[in-house]
């Protein structure tokens, strides 16, 4: 009897339908899914390092794999997701690194803008260093 009387804790039902309740939840999830592509791409780089350590033949085979349609499709998707991650990450920097000069806070747009600028310059420098252009 006492068992029936005792209040049972409310267990919130666990569902995934919240995702579709608002576009911002969907955007949040898209951002979170970027981890699959960034993590997957990093594992691909590790596979590349493995082939590089095994000699010229293995490395050429790795480059050949990069030419497969599946690899190209993965790269295009990964590039889109990684870029989305960068944009959301830099847009959040004013929240993570608020900067105060004297009495005033540096405007959000200046903090994220500086990050976007560094990202652009760094990406171009990396591509140039690698001989992409």
């Amino acid at each position: 009897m006492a068992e029936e009387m005792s209040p049972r804790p409310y267990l919130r039902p666990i569902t995934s339908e919240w995702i579709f309740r608002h576009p911002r939840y969907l955007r949040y999830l898209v951002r979170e899914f970027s981890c699959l592509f960034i993590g997957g791409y990093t594992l691909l780089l590790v596979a590349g390092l493995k082939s590089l350590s095994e000699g010229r033949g293995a490395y050429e085979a790795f480059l050949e794999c990069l030419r497969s349609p599946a690899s190209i499709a993965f790269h295009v998707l990964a590039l889109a997701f990684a870029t989305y991650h960068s944009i959301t990450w830099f847009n959040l920097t004013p929240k993570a690194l608020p900067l105060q000069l004297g009495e005033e806070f540096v405007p959000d747009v200046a903090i994220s803008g500086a990050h976007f600028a560094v990202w652009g310059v760094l990406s171009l420098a990396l591509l140039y260093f690698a001989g992409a252009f």
Partner: protein
Amino acid sequence: MTRSNKPIVWGPFAAGGTLTAFVTPALIVLTLLAGLGYAPELLGYDRLHAFMGHWLVKLAAIAVVFVSLWSSAHRLRITCYDLGLRADMLVATVVYAVALTGALAAAVFLAGI
């Protein structure tokens, strides 16, 4: 006061989020170009083998691989929880183990270059 392991988990996550935001898109462009038949000079076997042979580059590569995998693992763990998978301890163990194994593998392969 109980000690929290959150900073240990969260530090590499923040570092990885920042690092991948800065360099991952450009890295993807490099291997995408190679896949499309316009391999950048650096990705040639001799150039890359010589470049990756430097100890400083090796250390940097291990750091990049570790924080990239760790931040992805941490995000995946949180996403699993958000999607209703509440076995957090199991998920955390699996994703962090994969991240550590990947970084360790990278270190072993780099040692052989």
